[in-house]
């Protein structure tokens, strides 16, 4: 007869912790190196690459933060990301509503039209898109926002449609009994109920816009004050190629908003990604 084993996994917790520590070190190590590098002088970085900054100087960060360039780019990125998120969520939810809850011929067809968008990545369309925007006279930050909304719609509609479908159909009937029109139902009942789904797609759209590089690379040439942060970072890097510690400081600063946003939204992001993946 077999005796009941003591829980055999107990000791192997050390293995898990070990793997976790290695993973965390490999993830944070480079980031820490970057952030600390921003506090070093150029000579200190060369002599003492891994150590703590000596002398510890705020100069690099201060120089960047006391000039308007970084703040302008931060503002540009924020405006573009917010506008993109707003547009994606608004138009995406509006489109998903009839596709989920109306009965009409052609409904599936329209849905399929939007899903084909998943097969058209921005990379494939970017050259003609650039020309289209140029011909339409759309430039600057709007040139980013509008296409980003358009490219964000397919995934939004795909995530939101099942979400809206799952809300009980009795809601509409009850609303109709109270004399609320379908449009009124959308604004007054559906939007509040769809909030979790909208937050999920909104967070994904925000991150996508915040990190976008390809479109800004084509559209926002020239004046650095008109750039978003990612393009600003590469431009700064190109202009200060000899001042490595300055680049490190600039990149570290550009990293902060994304990391803060991520820390607050971690649950949402993960849910959004796993949800989007499960379809």
């Amino acid at each position, binding site marked *: 007869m*077999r005796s009941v*084993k003591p829980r*055999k*996994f107990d000791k*192997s*917790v050390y293995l898990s*912790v070990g793997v*976790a520590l290695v*993973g*965390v070190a*490999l*993830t944070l190590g*480079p*980031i820490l*190196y970057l952030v600390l590098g921003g506090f070093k002088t150029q000579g200190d970085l060369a002599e003492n*690459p*891994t150590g703590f900054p000596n002398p510890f100087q705020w100069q690099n960060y201060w120089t960047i933060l006391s000039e308007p360039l970084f703040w302008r780019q931060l503002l540009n990125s924020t405006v573009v990301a917010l506008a993109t998120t707003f547009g994606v969520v608004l138009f995406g939810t509006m489109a998903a509503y*009839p596709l989920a809850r*109306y*009965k*009409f*011929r*052609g409904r599936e067809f*329209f849905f399929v*039209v939007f899903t084909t*968008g998943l*097969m*058209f*990545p921005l*990379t*494939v*369309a970017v*050259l*003609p*898109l*650039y020309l*289209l925007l140029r011909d339409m006279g759309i430039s600057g930050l709007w040139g980013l926002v*509008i*296409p980003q909304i*358009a*490219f964000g*719609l397919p995934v939004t*509609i795909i995530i939101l449609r099942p979400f809206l479908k799952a809300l009980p159909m009795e809601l509409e009937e009850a609303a109709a009994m109270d004399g609320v029109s*379908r449009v009124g139902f*959308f604004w007054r009942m559906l939007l509040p109920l769809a909030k979790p789904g909208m937050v999920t797609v909104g967070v994904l759209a925000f991150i996508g816009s915040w*990190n976008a*590089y390809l479109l800004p690379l*084509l559209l926002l040439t020239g004046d650095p004050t008109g750039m978003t942060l990612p393009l600003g*970072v*590469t431009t700064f*890097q190109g202009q200060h190629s000899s001042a490595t510690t300055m680049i490190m400081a600039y*990149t570290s600063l550009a*990293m902060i908003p*994304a*990391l803060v946003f*991520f820390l607050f939204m*971690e649950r949402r992001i993960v849910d959004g*990604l*796993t949800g989007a*993946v499960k379809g």
Partner: protein
Amino acid sequence: MTALETSGVGQGSAVDANASAAGPRPVTPVTNHKRRDNIRKWGEITLFVGPALVLFLTFVVYPVISAARYSFYKWNGVSQFSDAEFIGFENYARALFGGTDPDLKQAFTTQYSQPFWEALGHNFAIIGLSMAVQLPLALLIALTLNRKFPGRPSVRVIMFAPYVLSEVIAGVMWLIIFDPNGIATDFMHSIGLNPPAGGWLEDQTWAFWVVFFIITWKYIGLAIILFLAGLSGVPEDLQEAASIDGASWWQVQWRINIPLIGPTIRIWAFLSLIGSIQLFDMVWVLNQGGTTGQYSTIATYMMQIGFFRSDWGYGSAIAVIMFFISFAVAVAYMLVVLRNDNTDRIRKAR
């Protein structure tokens, strides 16, 4: 009928909607009321779906179709497109085998065809390596972390963080680390090895591996987080029952956990495939694919040719080829993997 006419876009289909909603239509005066409701309904549908549809067709579908059109022309993107010269499939022929002109074939093979195949080769190498290296690594990490231990939530968050960072920030960061005079070089010296002589990203053998390492650092967090999410859905009693029956840790993973998160793994594989084909931002930040294109991808190649060398016709042909590869991969995935999933389900149902 005036009401129908004012409904604009919905006009043609309004009748359809009527037919489908009402089924075999009874010929009674009631239809008048129904019809009015139908017009309203189509008006609402237009109002709700319209903006999204217009945006989508204008800024997604139209550019893609334009890319297909440009790909048949020789055009520099500056002159009027109406003046561009129609050259049929020549752009595609140049990319694939150096073009159809026998006099220029040799020159075009080195100029167009070789870099194209090289870039495409890198994409496929990244696909292969993702499956051979990232997948087992992420799976192993997820399986080890799939248990309670102090600090686990923070570990999860930290390991996922690189995925949320922008490619540009991660790219610039690694560019500094792998600078020929940077910390990676120092590290190699300190353990008594020689770093690649021409620099990490220029060395013909090292460069690609360094880039793959950076890509892995950036993207493996997604795989880990997806697998962990999948594993949290595996009922604990299954694992407990198996270990009480004497199954080792490995057996539990191999026989229970991994098969049960199969669908998650397959979906990650799909995302990774598509992502690898369209890989651009990171590689572009890392010196635009390398001075001799030693780790170029098809997307960076497209940008270099199309935008920066103003060969829009050829660049568009590359874009179309990229689309067809993604499309083929998606279809193949649906056919092979989803059919397996479905037969699994059928087998389970029996």
